[in-house]
């Protein structure tokens, strides 16, 4: 008679017989407050599954303030790692009288042996664990999640390749025969594309004859993807580049085409509908309507278990299009090429989830003349406000003359910030590092970024000051499950997100990485050799977890119209045991990252 809940991971990886073995094999033990259940260095003899009570995990080697690295309550499981490793690394001490199920070592090993899935669960890294959850969700019939996991290869068509010398008439016949919408044209070793629209254009508008050769009308700059990419990222690039198909490349060889209609067949969601609305908007009003639908879209995607990274990418692409359009509507074309509108902060990194404040700035080309610029920028800020982007409380907006400057003035600013190194200047530098060109002439920003890297990447003193920000907030592992204030929760923005984002940003400055998204920076840092792949994956996964927890709270408060709820505070006690497990491991990753940074940038004192 053991009413033990075995429906949670990892026990849901067992079949009914396996669960019965667990049920028959466990013992019950009662531990008093303060008792040490498993000491550091002790041989692991049991897996502990808490029925009631609370247990703290202590790292005896850490300094006093940072000893507590874990906290377990009802439903949590620990001790498995100790069995796999032989001895326990940490001390497990009872925080509140605790009733535990004990799964003996022999039985645990036996079960691990007969259920490889169960075994894997304990051996996996954080990244793999999260992936596992995603896959489980996908299996439980969430079509959306299945879509998210689909690779490009699953949805791609055989390409219809024709020679560049083919005539338009022959091309049309090919299209009819193959029921395709587009042809790949190979010409002089290059690969191009001709679509039905191109053919119509050529015949009707340009008045070409039926015997004209197709290479003359083919497009040779292709939007490409890889067969192993996620289908979703193909959709993101279609949205970003305003095209209806991407070409799948393997090396230099085109191996397939993904058509928008095929993807939509896979994925009849509102994502593309919203992006179509944005593209078709002819004035600010219709843009505002499309923009208002974004939160709904995100909610729907999240509810369907879509991986956060893709949601953020999609949203960044959509927001980018909205702001780009607004800029185009408001600013005369002559000024558009002389200037570059930047989005900064989380928007620049492409990591905002719901609409964030407008953090933007403008670079003017040197020597350009724009008398009414203050008014124009004022109205741009107002318009973005109408589109649902609230003004920035720190006034980092184009309506503030400080953030509108010519190229050379920007260089001067950066030089001043880099040499003064006061907190405000460091913050401005950080903001500038995340800047992403969204409209106008993007080369202006590239020049400026080059300047910033040239100034900053070798300045050890600046880097050290800059990196110090990572340590500004203490590791939330000490705040974990503070029982005296159960409603308090932990601040995952300060304790989790900020150190990762800022640390990665610092490394990006050091290694001159132009990408602005944290995920992209992590990938670039791995290529650069600065980070090893498993650690970068763990960081990325930790970051995704923090964002997801935060987003969930934001969406909740959106539902309940509770503006009062603090979205950055996650109340640990409300999470399920498994989520707590993930969160704890994620925070461990953050802690390790901080330590690596302190070593690299000499922040110990």
């Amino acid at each position, binding site marked *: *008679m053991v009413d033990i809940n075995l429906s949670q991971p990892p026990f849901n990886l067992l079949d009914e017989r396996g669960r019965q073995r667990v049920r028959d094999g*466990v013992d019950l033990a009662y531990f008093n407050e303060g008792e040490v259940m498993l000491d550091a260095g002790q041989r692991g003899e049991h897996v502990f599954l808490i029925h009631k009570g609370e247990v703290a995990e202590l790292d005896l080697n850490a300094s006093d303030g940072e000893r507590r690295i874990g906290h377990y309550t009802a439903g949590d499981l620990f001790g498995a790692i100790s069995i796999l490793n032989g001895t326990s690394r940490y001390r497990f001490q009872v925080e509140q009288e605790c009733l535990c199920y004990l799964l003996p070592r022999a039985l645990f090993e036996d079960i691990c042996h007969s259920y490889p899935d169960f075994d894997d669960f304990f051996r996996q890294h954080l990244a793999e664990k999260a992936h596992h959850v995603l896959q489980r969700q996908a299996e439980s019939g969430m079509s959306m999640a299945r879509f998210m996991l689909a690779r490009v290869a699953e949805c791609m068509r055989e390409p219809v390749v024709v020679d560049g010398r083919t005539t338009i008439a022959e091309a049309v016949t090919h299209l009819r025969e193959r029921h395709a919408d587009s042809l790949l044209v190979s010409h002089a070793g290059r690969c191009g594309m001709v679509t039905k629209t191109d053919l119509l254009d050529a015949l009707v508008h340009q008045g070409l004859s039926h015997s004209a050769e197709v290479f003359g009308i083919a497009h040779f700059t292709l939007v490409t993807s890889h067969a192993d990419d996620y289908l979703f990222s193909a959709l993101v690039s279609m949205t970003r580049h305003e095209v209806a198909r991407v070409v799948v490349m393997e090396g230099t060889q085109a191996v397939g085409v993904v058509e928008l209609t095929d993807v939509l067949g896979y994925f009849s969601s509102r994502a593309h509908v919203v992006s179509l609305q944005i593209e078709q908007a002819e004035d600010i009003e219709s843009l505002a309507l499309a923009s208002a639908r974004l939160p709904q879209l995100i909610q729907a995607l999240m509810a369907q278990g879509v991986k956060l990274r893709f949601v953020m990418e999609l949203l960044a692409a959509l927001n980018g299009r909205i702001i780009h359009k607004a800029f185009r509507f408001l600013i005369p074309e002559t000024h558009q090429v002389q200037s570059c509108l930047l989005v900064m902060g989380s928007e620049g990194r492409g990591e905002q989830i719901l609409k964030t404040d407008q953090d933007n700035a403008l670079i003017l080309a040197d020597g350009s003349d724009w008398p009414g610029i203050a008014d124009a920028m004022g109205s741009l800020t107002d318009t973005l406000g109408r589109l649902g982007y609230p003004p920035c409380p720190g006034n980092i907006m184009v309506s503030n003359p400080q953030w509108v400057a010519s190229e050379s003035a920007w260089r001067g600013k950066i030089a001043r910030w880099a040499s003064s190194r006061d907190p405000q200047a460091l913050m401005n530098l950080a903001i500038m590092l995340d800047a992403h060109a969204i409209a106008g002439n993007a080369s202006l920003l590239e020049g400026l970024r080059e300047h910033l890297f040239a100034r900053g990447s070798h300045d050890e003193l600046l880097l050290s000051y800059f990196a110090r920000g990572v340590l500004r907030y203490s590791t939330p592992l000490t705040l974990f499950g503070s029982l005296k204030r159960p409603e308090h929760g932990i601040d995952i923005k300060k304790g989790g997100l900020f150190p990762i984002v800022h640390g990665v940003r610092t490394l990006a400055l050091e290694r001159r990485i132009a990408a602005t998204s944290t995920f992209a920076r992590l990938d670039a840092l791995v290529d650069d050799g600065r980070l090893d792949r498993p650690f970068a994956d763990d960081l990325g996964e930790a970051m995704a977890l923090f964002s997801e927890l935060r987003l969930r709270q934001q969406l909740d408060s959106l539902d309940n119209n509770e503006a009062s709820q603090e979205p950055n505070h996650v109340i640990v006690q409300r999470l399920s045991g498994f989520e707590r497990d993930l969160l704890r491991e994620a925070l461990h990753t953050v802690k390790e990252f901080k330590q690596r940074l302190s070593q690299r940038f000499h922040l110990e004192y």
Partner: protein
Amino acid sequence: MIKALRRAGDRRRQLGGHHAWRFEPYCGSEVIALDCETTDLDPRRAELVALAAVKIRDGRVLTSESLDLRLQRPESLSGDSIRIHGLRGVDLWGGEALGDALDRLLDFIGNRPLLGWCIDYDVAVINRHLRPRTGFDLPNRTLDICRLYARERQRIQPGSEPDIRFEAMSEALGVPVMGRHTALGDAVTTALMYLRLCHGRAVSA
């Protein structure tokens, strides 16, 4: 007094028999938590329906080493008791014969002390069925959780009248009730209450 005499008599009769060792005093550290579900509250009429026992060793309830037996449907199984333990006639289909069940129980408990909630009642019911078969009563020492609890309460709060109902006790001790009115559930809960009492004393002492 009568019990002691009876036990002495039993012991002499079993001397040299294969049950003799049961009368030896127990010197290990294990305790057996025991619970029975019966058809009646009167030990003179009650028939056994289910029997469960679980070992307690080194501060642990060894649910992996437990005995959980359903018996064959007794004659007197009636609606009143079914309401409590939830074992209907059909549920007892395929249950153990009473004699086999008692043999297994004897093997399981050996000469370890028995623990239970109002253990005297359970022992009385078992003895009534055991005596005609083997010729002796359970010789094991008994520990009544009610008495242990009441003593502990009065030690902390002299003069109080402790509530010794099963649920009240488990609540006061902060022990979750694991499947009330199933034999094994009650036995496990009782075992947990015992651990809780022993532990509490170890700390306050």
